[in-house]
């Protein structure tokens, strides 16, 4: 009799425990996934999820566009007419469209704005300023010159700085206050920029720096940081430059530019010294703010695009049978 009773209680206990466990598990499942087959059809479920997704994304979008309180980033891009120009500007604009509060200052190396760039910028969806400044003939690279012979883009970048200074002088009140926090970045049209880079540079007090990939004959060049300060630069090419850093490797606060009206790029500077010619007016190495995880991550790459081979086009053009020049490439 005793044995039986014991067994009975054991069974009852076991039954209760397993039932409770089952209920608990079902409740867990029920919360996590609504796809229990008969309850809701799959399509209903999908559209319900999508609806929710859309709502949330709309919410995030409106939040993003409300993001007017983050410091502006002014990106100065010198550009010049060549076959790949439109392609380069196109993919660059795709990157910039993701960055809030970005103002693109495009400076053409041309006597006047070209229709290609004018139309392109108008259709891009970006906030932009379209400038132009022709490089004097003696400073310009000639056809066949290697790219390292003369520094390129100095006049155009200076023109961008001039425009910023003009804007700074004219601004007042809230606008002027916003300019105090803004940041200026020099972005060439053939480099590659990650989106994170812009968030790293957004809060720059003086001059912030970070590594640049695929430059200086190496996988990357970077500032060397010790105790949170930049002590030297890790580069294999002319490390004895005052600032052995690439144009894509630093950003300057607009405030610093506005308070140093003499700071500009020296178009006569030796190749590789262009950045130094500008930065030496503004900071010393101690003032550099290291970004990108204390300069250990590569967030920008100094890519270069090949010049497309035009042998057949040239041959055709000689015969007067070249491709339709009205088709913009």
């Amino acid at each position, binding site marked *: 009799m005793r044995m039986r009773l014991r067994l009975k209680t054991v069974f009852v206990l076991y039954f209760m425990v397993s039932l409770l466990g089952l209920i608990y598990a079902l409740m867990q499942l029920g919360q*996590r996934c609504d796809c229990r087959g008969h309850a809701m059809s799959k399509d209903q479920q999908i559209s319900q999820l999508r609806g929710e997704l859309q709502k949330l994304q709309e919410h995030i979008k409106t939040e993003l566009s409300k993001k007017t309180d983050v410091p502006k980033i002014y990106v100065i891009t010198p550009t010049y007419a060549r076959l790949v120009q439109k392609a*380069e500007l196109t993919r660059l604009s795709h990157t910039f469209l993701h960055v809030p509060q970005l103002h693109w200052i495009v400076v053409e190396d041309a006597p006047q704005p070209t229709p290609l760039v004018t139309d392109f910028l108008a259709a891009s969806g970006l906030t932009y300023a379209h400038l132009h400044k022709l490089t004097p003939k003696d400073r310009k690279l000639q056809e066949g010159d290697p790219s390292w012979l003369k520094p390129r883009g100095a006049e155009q970048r200076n023109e961008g700085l001039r425009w910023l200074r003009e804007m700074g002088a004219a601004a007042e009140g809230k606008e002027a206050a916003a300019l105090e926090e803004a940041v200026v970045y020099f972005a060439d049209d053939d480099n590659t920029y990650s989106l994170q880079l812009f*968030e790293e540079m957004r809060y720059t007090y003086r001059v912030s720096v970070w590594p640049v990939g695929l430059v200086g004959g*190496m996988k990357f060049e970077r500032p060397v940081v010790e105790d949170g300060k930049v002590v030297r630069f890790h580069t294999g090419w002319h490390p004895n430059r005052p600032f052995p850093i690439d144009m894509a490797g630093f950003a300057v606060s607009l405030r610093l530019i506005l308070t140093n009206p003499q700071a500009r790029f020296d178009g006569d500077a030796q190749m590789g010294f262009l950045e130094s010619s500008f930065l030496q007016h503004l900071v010393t190495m101690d003032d550099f703010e290291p970004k990108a995880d204390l300069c250990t991550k590569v967030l920008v790459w100094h890519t270069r695009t090949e010049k497309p081979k*035009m*042998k*057949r086009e040239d041959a055709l053009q000689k015969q007067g049978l070249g491709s339709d020049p009205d088709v913009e*490439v």
Partner: protein
Amino acid sequence: MPKRRDILAIVLIVLPWTLLITVWHQSAIAPLLAIRKGTNDGTETRHDTGPATDSKEYCSQDKDIVEVVRTEYVYTRPPPWSDVLPTIHVITPTYSRPVQKAELTRLANTFLHVPNLHWILVEDSQRRTPLVTRLLRETGLNYTHLNVETPRNYKLRGDMRDPRIPRGTMQRNLALRWLRETFNSNSSQAGIVYFADDDNTYSLELFEEMRSTRKVSVWPVAFVGGLRYESPKVNAAGKVYGWKTVFDPHRPFAIDMAGFAINLRLILFKPQAYFKLRGVKGGYQESSLLRELVTLNDLEPKAANCTKILVWHTRTEKPVLVNEGKKGFTDPNVEI
């Protein structure tokens, strides 16, 4: 009487467990396990639930891939998935080299603007590399990550261009096979397949042009064939009748990989159509696939009857890494 009681007791013990097992089976766990195992080629597909949950469990066999909303500050979300737009499946073969991460980054920045885009990235490698895995995850794009290694004899050796062995062929074929295994021809999944190399430049307009493809659509491509652009020849009736190229215009389809898109239904309808691997002359790779799918008459010209350039066959220079020297100057742990 005791016997009945015993039977009752046994039933009461077994019942909860059978209930549990059946319900568990129907629930998310089974598909989750299936996904985790993956297929033979080692695929990783992105199936995520809506924003309400961030748990690891996925809802059952949801072929309508719903991408998760990311709250990171870095990337904006891809546009909301639409019920109406056909999905564009972009097949990109890629391989490791110094500029790879840069190329994929700027490509991703472009794709993030295109609604209903599904990126099928196929690595030419033995295993899926951490670099690409991480990159794909961080973009927030809807993607499928595959890999297949081109056997040594097929690979291009260094800079020597052997035009008989086109690069990326095995990778593109693997993606086609994945599509055929994933989608069955009866499904109402509207999709377009596009082959996008990782160094080209694509305008956003291009993707909207290709979305209306019924069979195979074509358009001009800049910087190919030694010309400013190559283009299909379109007659007054809006039909393609030839090719405006200098390099072998008598190829069945004298068009670059970036110059056409195929409707997914056609890919599924002709499951034997693949890019030819061996014995393909330079410039004939595209023809090796297209001739099994369409005739010239079926081609749909896009980009304003093939008068606008919406895609550029750009090539990125190989970076000169002389200063790395033999032992490497920079920290090899830093990813570029």
